[in-house]
């Protein structure tokens, strides 16, 4: 259907041009443009100009839809800065989540070590040199053999270093959260969509969980329970983290059914 007036034709064109803008900006710009154009045309009409010509003149003075939309976009450097920040921010959060997962695996390893003995986590199935044995026995004086001292030391190191990484991860998550909140308050919404980062997180943790589970199974098959906890603790936490990324990702990807939508709108 042909638009009834130049103003309506212009608003249709502006609506098309605004399709990549956020809904609130588009709605407001359209409403303000319509109000402005009708007022401008009314003013011209009072000077004796025909309505159609008045509307045409009002539209010409308003500028083209492309010109208006271009002016509503931030400057190129602001967009680039926003895009870089919008991409680095999720990376900081992902790195933080990864380090927190490492820390949690340290806690799980500590629980496994307490429950099944330090050999379940720390036994590495390797032969140590005499000097290495001397070192292990010196730092683990309660051990009665080189193998036991090495297992205790490996277990302690694994737990302590992982917990340290977890602490660093919490700091990164906190910084990333503050950065995100500040960006939201300033209305800077650039970067890749959340679906991308959720997919990256799911893939990273999923691959880690699978790899560590394979390693644990391999150890259990070839050497029994010794050293299995070293990898199993990581596999358990990585699997849980993968689920934590999979749930919101699934919610975003699956279409919301009408009854659910009606419920959520209430």
């Amino acid at each position, binding site marked *: 259907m042909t638009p009834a007036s130049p103003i309506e034709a212009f608003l249709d064109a502006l609506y098309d041009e605004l399709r990549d803008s956020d809904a609130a*900006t588009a709605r*407001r*710009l359209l*409403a*303000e*443009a319509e*109000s*402005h154009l*009708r*007022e*401008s045309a009314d003013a011209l009409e009072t000077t004796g100009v025909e309505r159609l010509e008045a509307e045409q003149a009002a539209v010409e*003075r*308003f*500028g*083209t839809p492309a*010109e*208006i939309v271009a*002016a*509503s976009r931030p400057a190129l450097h602001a967009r680039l800065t926003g895009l870089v920040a919008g991409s680095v921010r999720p990376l900081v959060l992902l790195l933080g989540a990864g380090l927190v997962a490492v820390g949690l695996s340290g806690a799980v390893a500590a629980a496994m070590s307490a429950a099944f003995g330090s050999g379940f986590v720390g036994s590495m199935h390797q032969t140590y040199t005499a000097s290495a044995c001397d070192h292990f026995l010196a730092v683990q004086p309660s051990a009665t053999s080189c193998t036991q001292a090495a297992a205790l030391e490996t277990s302690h190191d694994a737990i302590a270093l992982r917990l340290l990484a977890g602490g660093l991860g919490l700091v990164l998550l906190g910084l990333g959260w503050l950065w995100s909140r500040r960006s939201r308050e*300033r*209305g800077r919404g650039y970067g890749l969509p959340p679906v991308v980062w959720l997919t990256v997180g799911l893939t990273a943790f999923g691959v880690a969980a699978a790899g560590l589970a394979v390693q644990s199974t391999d150890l259990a098959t070839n050497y029994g329970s010794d050293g299995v906890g070293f990898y199993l603790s990581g596999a358990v936490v990585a699997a849980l983290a993968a689920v934590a990324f999979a749930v919101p990702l699934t919610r975003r990807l699956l279409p919301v059914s009408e009854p659910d939508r009606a419920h959520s709108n209430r």
Partner: protein
Amino acid sequence: MDSARLKGNLDLLVLSVLADGPAHGYAIITMLRDRSDGTFDLAEGTVYPALHKLEKAGHVMSWWDEGGPRRRRMYDLTPQGRRELAAERKRWLGFARGVQAVMGVPS
């Protein structure tokens, strides 16, 4: 005046017009044209993105005025906007004095 130079100073011009009191977009653009004797004749629609950016920066506030025959978005300076206008005005006057001095134009 060339449009690039005008666009570069649009924020200052819009804030200056709003210093006289609340106004809607059409009135702002009309005042800009009238006060400049037609020198500032930019595409009228570009004033809205400028107003939206000023609002996002906290320099102006806006609301819908439903009172008249037509629904209009009204804009007014915030206290922060008044401070920004004063600072921008000072910068502009300093710059203009410098340019005039270099060009040998008596101020």
